[in-house]
Each structure stands twice: as structure tokens, then as C-alpha cells.
């Protein structure tokens, strides 16, 4: 490898030998094309014309009034396929095409990354196999159907907890077997190098647009940037442009589930260091190094690992992370829907809930919340939670 892919001591390439040449090939291609004019022009074209970039930085008047702060929402929820995931799948899909790969594979939890992958597979005329835990397949039937309509094959994974972590294991096994013609389109800033760096790169467009717009609207940087953290791609996408601006607080909201005493997905808040899915980072595990099952009402935050750069930002103190419980996320979901007429994804609802907490402690500040996805996919879960039958 050209770089060791480390953030402090976190990250790396903890993978079976069979995958090393594939990671080397991918790193080489990424480094070549990330600054390539033709590649970037093509990617910008698809981001604009196909995905709908740039997205607005919306001043949420009603919410600002209610919370006593200036609240801006970065509207990634308005993108094609309904979340920020498309930024990365367009980037990696195009890279796979430039590399001459013939087939895409991906893991998915709730199905948002699966749909975004199925979508670019259609766009770039490649077959796609999407690994999804059988528990998630059962609870996200609509998204499974959407992927299949786009021509992707959804493969239910029966091993382990049958959720996102196991889908990732299975996608890696597929890649180990079909490494020569297949690109593994990993959906988050997790996994072995170069994925954490590459996925962040394709998501920095969120932070770049946000910085430009907030300077235009406010004439200064915000006091805080808040985003939810599962694997960590939407948060790193928006944080990255502000990391060097020390006066801007960076706050990550993790899936607190039933609370840290019960089942949760708050890896940075309550996890310990370990090696999972190719990198050293914080993980949820038992005393013997066996990975625990995570829980969150939001499938996108239901993951016992986290991207290695977040671990680095945590231990260096540059970003702060905290858990938001299912109940708090649910209340934030209702609040944003009611006050702004914007139905957020359950993942993004965690960021909204964190903004509410921050606003209480810091009145009068300017806050940017990354609204990473829209909530259409979650209305059934919300109805269940409220005891409403649709």
C-alpha cells in the first residue's frame, strides 16, 4: 500500500491476505482518479444532474424560534434516493467503471446504501448483488423491493445476528472469492484502508457546500456542526471541512437505543478498542473480544463498529460524541415534522435531538445540523412505535 491508512493508531488493513492486492489496486486507482480532471468533471455532472446537488442549507425558522438558537439544516434528505449515500455510490461506482470492474457488491442495513448502490448499478450498467441480513430483509420489505425493481439482487444473510455487521462479513467473503472482476462498494467510512479515506473524500461535498453557504448567509462560521454517527460517513462528510476551524464544535450523535445500560449502538460513547471489518477502531465487544450485537431504532446506526477517523477525533478531543436514545430520536422526529414540515430519517432524527440538547446548553448559538436522509422509509417503524396501525 502507498499509505498505511492510519488516523493516529486507528484504521489500517486488518484483512485476509487474499484481499491485499485488491486493496492495493483500489488505493492506486483512487489516488489516481481523485485529482483527475475528467473523472471529477464526470462525477460532478452526475452529482448535479442525477442526484440533485447542491442541496440547500435551510434556515429552520420555526425550530430556531422554539430552541432559541439559529438552526440550519443541510438538506441531504432532498437527494435522489433520499439520503447522502448517493454521493459515495456515485463516486465509487464511477471509480469501479474507470477501473474496468464488471460487477458491484454492497452491504446494507436498512437498505438506503443498497438502494443507492442498485441505482448507480443501473446508471452505469453493472450487475449488483446486495447483502442484507435476513432480519433486515424482513423488516425493510419496501426497500428490498425497491432494490429489486432497479435490477439488483438482494441476498439475505443468515449468519450471526443477521443484520448489518453480518451483511458486511458476507460482502467481504464474496469479494475474497470474486476479487478480480468485482468492486466492493462499501457504504461507510469504516472497513480497511482505503475505504475510510475514500468514502470520506466522496462525502466531503456535504461539508464544502455547507461552509460556502453558511459564510454567505451568516458571514461567519457556525458555532457547532452536528451529525449522526453510525459507521460515520455523513458526519465525516460534513465535519471534514471544519476540522481545522478549531472554534467550530463538532458533535456526533450515536444510536443510544434503550440507553447505555441496555442495548444500544453507541460505539464511541460506550465501546472499547478492537479490530472489526478491517480496521482498528472502537467496537462494542465482550471481555473476550467477541463482537456484540448493537441495537438502535434506526437501522443505519445499528452497528457495533465505527469508522476509525471518528475514533481519532474522539481521543484527540476534536469532536464530541454522545448517545441519543430511541425515545429521544422519536421525539425529535415528531418535532421536526411538526415544526418544519420536514420528515427526517430516524438516523438524522438523532442529530436533531442532539441539536436540541446543545441549544439548551448554548442559547443563541448558530448550529448546522446535517439532515442526512428523509424519513419516508421510517414511517412504518414510527407508526409501530406510536401504536398506530397503518
Amino acid at each position, binding site marked *: 500500500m502507498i499509505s498505511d491508512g492510519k488516523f493516529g493508531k486507528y484504521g489500517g488493513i486488518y484483512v485476509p*491476505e*487474499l484481499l491485499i492486492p485488491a486493496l492495493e489496486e483500489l488505493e492506486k486507482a483512487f489516488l489516481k482518479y481523485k485529482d483527475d480532471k475528467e473523472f471529477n468533471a464526470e462525477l460532478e455532472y452526475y452529482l448535479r444532474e442525477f442526484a440533485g446537488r447542491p442541496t440547500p442549507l435551510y434556515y429552520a425558522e420555526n425550530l430556531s424560534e422554539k430552541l432559541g438558537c439559529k438552526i440550519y439544516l443541510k438538506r441531504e434528505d432532498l437527494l435522489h434516493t433520499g439520503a447522502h449515500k448517493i454521493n459515495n455510490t456515485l463516486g465509487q461506482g464511477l471509480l469501479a467503471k474507470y477501473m474496468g470492474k464488471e460487477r458491484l457488491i454492497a452491504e446494507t442495513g436498512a437498505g438506503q446504501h443498497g438502494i443507492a448502490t442498485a441505482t448507480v448499478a443501473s446508471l452505469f450498467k453493472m450487475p449488483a448483488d446486495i447483502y442484507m441480513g435476513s432480519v433486515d430483509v424482513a423488516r425493510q420489505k419496501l426497500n428490498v423491493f425497491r432494490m429489486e425493481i432497479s435490477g439488483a439482487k438482494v441476498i439475505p444473510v443468515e449468519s*450471526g445476528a443477521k443484520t448489518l455487521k453480518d451483511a458486511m462479513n458476507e460482502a467481504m467473503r464474496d469479494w475474497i472469492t*470474486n476479487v478480480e472482476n468485482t468492486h466492493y462498494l462499501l457504504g461507510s467510512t469504516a472497513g480497511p484502508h482505503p475505504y475510510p479515506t475514500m468514502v470520506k473524500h466522496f462525502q466531503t461535498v456535504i461539508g464544502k457546500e455547507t461552509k460556502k453557504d453558511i459564510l454567505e448567509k451568516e458571514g461567519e462560521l457556525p458555532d457547532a456542526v452536528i451529525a449522526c454517527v453510525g459507521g460515520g460517513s455523513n458526519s465525516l462528510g460534513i465535519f471534514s471541512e471544519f476540522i481545522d476551524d478549531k472554534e467550530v464544535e463538532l458533535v456526533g450523535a450515536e444510536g443510544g437505543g434503550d440507553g447505555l445500560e441496555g442495548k444500544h449502538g453507541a460505539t464511541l460513547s460506550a465501546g472499547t478498542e478492537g479490530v472489526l471489518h478491517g480496521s482498528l477502531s472502537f467496537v462494542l465487544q465482550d471481555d473476550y473480544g467477541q463482537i456484540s450485537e448493537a441495537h438502535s431504532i434506526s437501522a443505519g446506526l445499528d452497528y457495533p463498529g465505527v469508522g476509525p477517523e471518528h475514533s481519532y477525533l474522539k481521543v484527540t478531543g476534536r469532536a464530541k460524541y454522545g448517545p441519543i436514545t430511541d425515545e429521544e430520536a422519536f421525539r425529535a422526529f415528531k418535532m421536526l415534522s411538526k415544526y418544519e414540515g420536514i420528515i427526517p430519517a430516524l438516523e438524522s432524527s438523532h442529530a436533531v435531538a442532539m441539536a436540541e440538547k446543545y441549544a439548551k446548553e448554548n442559547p443563541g448559538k448558530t448550529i448546522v445540523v446535517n439532515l442526512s436522509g428523509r424519513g419516508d422509509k421510517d414511517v412504518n417503524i414510527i407508526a409501530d412505535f406510536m401504536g398506530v396501525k397503518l
Partner: protein
Amino acid sequence: MNIESYDAAFERTKTKKEGAFIPFVVAGDPDFETSLQIVKVFVENGADALEIGFPFSDPVADGPTVQLADIRALESGMTAEKGFEFIRRIREFTDIPVGVLTYYNLIYKMGLEKFYKMARENGANAILAADLPPEEACEALEAAQKNGVQQIFMAAQTTSNERLQEITKMCSGFLYVVAVMGTTGARAELKTTTVDLIKRIKSHSDIPISVGFGISKPKHVREVINAGADGAIVASAILNIITENLENKEEMLQKVGKFCAELKEATKS
């Protein structure tokens, strides 16, 4: 007990004009005592060295057979510490080389110093972590050398000649050669590329090599030994017998023994 080294074991088999037969079982599959009996059966039926798996919740290099074995072992309460106790019990009846096959998180979580110290104290010859390539192995190698434990690495068809040189420099005991492009699991046929790979490695290095992944029939064992490998590692085909005979342990042990005897015989061609 005087533990035999890998070098001595490969020398012993070579003198007899045989290859080394190296069976694999997951410690604690389906439970501690039964898996210990399985190891006894391995030894009684000609095993020249042993590979002992410490189970991990997320074994990405393994196919469904080993995953199931890992789950059974974890359900029976297996941990790395108990795994070393398992090896100590193996040392009550054999001195042939014992290698531990696991994933890096088990080592990292226990702490490298403690893990390798326990390996030495309980009689393990070598450690192989399936997700620890040379790039990440500096600290592990240091702990291994300090404790006189050997560190084994893998090589595959995709491994370039330059990389092979780096790997063989770091690797001791033997080089674990991955016979297939894929995860562990029984296969019907062995690819001709495996034979080419064995020959390529042999032209680059003197390190003993053992071939695993997909070696599931006496015929495969014969093929890799004839191609120049020093040893053949058989895992999933044995674990399949365990999986199919969980209800009848007598029969399980008998079938494993018979199969091992056939595999050992195939190293003598």
C-alpha cells in the same frame, strides 16, 4: 514434555518420504471435552501437526462450515484463555506441533504480551491470525519473538513475488498457502493454479509450506504433496463430519478417525 518444532516435524515426515497431515478443529466445538477427544483421534490416526481454531464472532475468511463450528464453540463458552487451557490438555498426550488459528481481535483484546506468553506457557508452537497481514504485524511479531512463539502468515494466488519475499522473511514455522480464491470450505476439485502457486513459492523460498482452504479429499492431499508442499491442512471436511454427527459422538469420533487415516495415507504417495 519436549515439544517438537515444525522444522523437526517436517524433517521427520520428509525422511519417511511423506507429507505432513495437519487436521484442524475449533477448540470447544461442540464442547471442550468432545473437541479434546477429536484431537486425540487426530493424533491416533496419523496427524503430524495440529491446527486449533479459537472461535471469533465475525470470521470473514471462513465459509459456512467453520462459521457454524465457531458458533457451536462460542455457545459452549470458549474463549482465548480456555483455548490455551485446551492446548495444555493436548500437551498431556502429544508433543507434535500445535498452531493456533484465530482472528486478531482476540489477541488484541487479551493484550499481545499476555496472549503470546500464554501461548508459550501452554505449549503452542505458533499463532496465525487470519486478518493480520504483514503490514499490521509488527507488534505481534515482537511479542511472538520475545516469547519464542512462531508467527505464521498466509500466501495466496494473488500474492505477488515481491510480496511473497516480504512475507517469507517474517513468517516462521511454515507458510500457510491458501489453495483457493475464496473462503474456507470443502471443494470438489483442486484448481491447477494451486499446483502452480506451490511451485512458484518453492522457487522463491526454502520455508516449509502447508496448503489449506478447500483441501477436502485424500486426492487433494496427494496432489498438493506431489506438487511439493510439505504439509496439507484439512478443516471443513472434518468439521462437516462433526456437524453431521452431533447426536452420536461415538460415531462422530469413529468417522473422523477413519477419514483422518485415509488423509494421512494420501501423504505417503
